[in-house]
């Protein structure tokens, strides 16, 4: 071992209490950093999962058209000066061709058309208003993983039964309906039709459970008195939801229709996420920084205590960088011990919290061992401890031995 490291080690162990306090500071800072950031990743993941239960990554739709001022030439007064929404239908023209076009994009994984219709669920005299979503069962299941929240019945039966319907558990409770019962739907266009319940789903989002149902797309088109080419929305899933905005732009330019990424569609939620991210990052970094101050303080004290040692070492031929090495080695040793302890403590905290049931939409506490956050925490922790050691070390290196030894 190098003599500077040997001196560093001796200093470190000759004052075990101080060293332990500094290490403990890093352990706490480190573990809280990893823990809070893992929690944030978990929150993001669970909120994304709940979004993607009913939202696609990208939604393609035809936007309302607004009439443009009619100009005879650039200099003249416009003929129409009060632009308003033009009353045309929001159908996507030739949806099959558009679906094929979208499927050619390499990032796209699932494309499925969807027709939403507002309905009344009627059973005897009771009536509930809600939203019936016309889907292609297989594709929709790929997109939303509907089967994972079906609690009763068999979702696959929707494929074979054109009159099949999958309802939310709230509707089933309110209307005392069970699988294989019949349910009458009245659409906004006044069409009445009876469906047979093939499955019941439960998302734990009570609003969805009380209003939503899935039917075949053809049935939805019939409820709206439209033909089979009537498609209002095309839903698209892609490989990485984070890229939704970029892919959406591409699809928009290819198809000519509006494509909206999920982040745009859930802006409030994204803003909340962003806020949470800022707060957690700020707090966890501050805690880590405070641990760094602990090391800085203790090393500063050591430098003052050992100023005679530093002077004589410099007199005996230790260079500035040797002195820096002595103190930086101490800081980094404290850092490494703290980081190891911190990782251990973070693992324990996460393990405990993972088992806590919070209920509702979320279930178990959404936290997991995030390797990326562990690595990030270790890197930041070591950088902070390095600088916490480097500043006092630099001070020690600049000690003028003559001033100390001449006293």
């Amino acid at each position: 071992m190098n003599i500077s490291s040997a001196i560093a080690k001796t200093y470190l162990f000759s004052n075990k209490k101080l060293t332990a306090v500094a290490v403990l500071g890093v352990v706490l800072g480190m573990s809280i950093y990893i823990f809070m950031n893992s929690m944030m990743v978990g929150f993001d993941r669970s909120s994304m999962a709940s979004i993607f239960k009913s939202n696609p990554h990208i939604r393609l739709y035809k936007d309302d058209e607004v009439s443009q001022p009619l100009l005879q030439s650039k200099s003249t007064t416009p003929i129409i000066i009060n632009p308003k929404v033009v009353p045309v239908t929001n159908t996507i023209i030739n949806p099959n061709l558009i679906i094929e076009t979208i499927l050619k994009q390499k990032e796209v994984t699932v494309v499925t058309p969807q027709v939403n219709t507002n309905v009344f669920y009627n059973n005897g005299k009771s009536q509930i208003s809600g939203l019936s979503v016309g889907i292609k069962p297989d594709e929709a299941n790929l997109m939303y993983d509907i089967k994972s929240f079906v609690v009763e019945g068999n979702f696959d039966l929707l494929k074979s039964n054109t009159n099949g319907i999958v309802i939310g558990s709230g509707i089933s409770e309110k209307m005392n309906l069970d699988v294989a019962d019949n349910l009458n739907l009245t659409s906004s266009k006044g069409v009445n039709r009876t469906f047979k319940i093939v499955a019941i789903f439960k998302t734990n989002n009570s609003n969805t459970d009380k209003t939503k149902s899935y039917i075949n797309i053809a049935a939805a088109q019939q409820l709206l008195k439209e033909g089979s080419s009537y498609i209002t929305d095309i839903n698209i899933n892609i490989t990485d939801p984070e890229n939704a905005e970029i892919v959406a732009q591409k699809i928009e330019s290819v198809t000519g229709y509006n494509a909206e990424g999920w982040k745009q569609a859930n802006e409030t939620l994204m803003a909340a996420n962003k806020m949470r991210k800022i707060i957690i990052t700020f707090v966890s970094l501050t805690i880590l920084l405070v641990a760094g101050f602990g090391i800085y303080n203790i090393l500063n004290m050591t430098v003052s205590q050992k100023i005679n040692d530093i002077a004589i070492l410099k007199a005996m031929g230790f260079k500035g960088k040797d002195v820096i090495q002595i103190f930086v080695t101490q800081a980094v040793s404290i850092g490494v011990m703290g980081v190891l302890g911190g990782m251990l403590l973070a693992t324990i905290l996460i393990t405990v919290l993972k088992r806590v049931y919070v209920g509702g939409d979320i279930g178990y506490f959404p936290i997991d061992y995030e390797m990326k956050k562990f690595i990030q925490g270790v890197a930041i922790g070591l950088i902070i401890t390095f600088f916490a050691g480097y500043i006092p070390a630099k001070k020690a290196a600049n000690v003028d031995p003559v001033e100390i030894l001449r006293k």
Partner: protein
Amino acid sequence: MLQTKNIDKYFYQPTEFQVLKKISFEVKKGEFLSMIGKSGSGKSTLLYILSTMDTDYNGELWIDNQLVTGLTPNELAEVRNQKIGFVFQFHYLLPEFSCLQNVMIPALKLGKLSVAEIEERAYQKLDILGLKDQALKPASKLSGGQQQRVAIARALINDPLIIMGDEPTGNLDSKNTSIVFDIFQELTRNFGQTIIAVTHDDDFARKSDRIIEMKDGEILV
């Protein structure tokens, strides 16, 4: 061996003041030289310039036929490590280390020998100073005279060209002073060691080979 040419030094605090005026002298190998003079005569200041630790002066300093004036701090550190051993009024041993380790530190820094060889040499040096049996004790557990002898052993470990002492006996009683003096004398006579020591002790100075007396920044004799 060691030569100075026209060394001037000024202090600027609190007012400008010339501490050393055109100091030129030469030290030969194997010489035991004492520097005496009243407080403020500049003898300590001169010693710290000779030691290469103080670089803020005009003039030239040659050690071992090498001009050391103008070298970088790192180069000077190497010069000190190899060629100069220090003994101060206070021992400046590292209290957490054993005597043996304290003696070994400059040699470990030099890194020319293996650790085993350095340890053997450290034992030899401690033996010369009659401290072999104290080698493994922590430096803080020794008496003042013993600590000063360990510091001398540490100064000797790299076989320096010159040992520089700043009041090496200043903190010792008469018995330990004579022990330290005898050690210095033995080193010059038996080992041809060059020693430059600043002292207040006239007895100590009188017994050395050569005396330089300083007054108001100039050499008198």
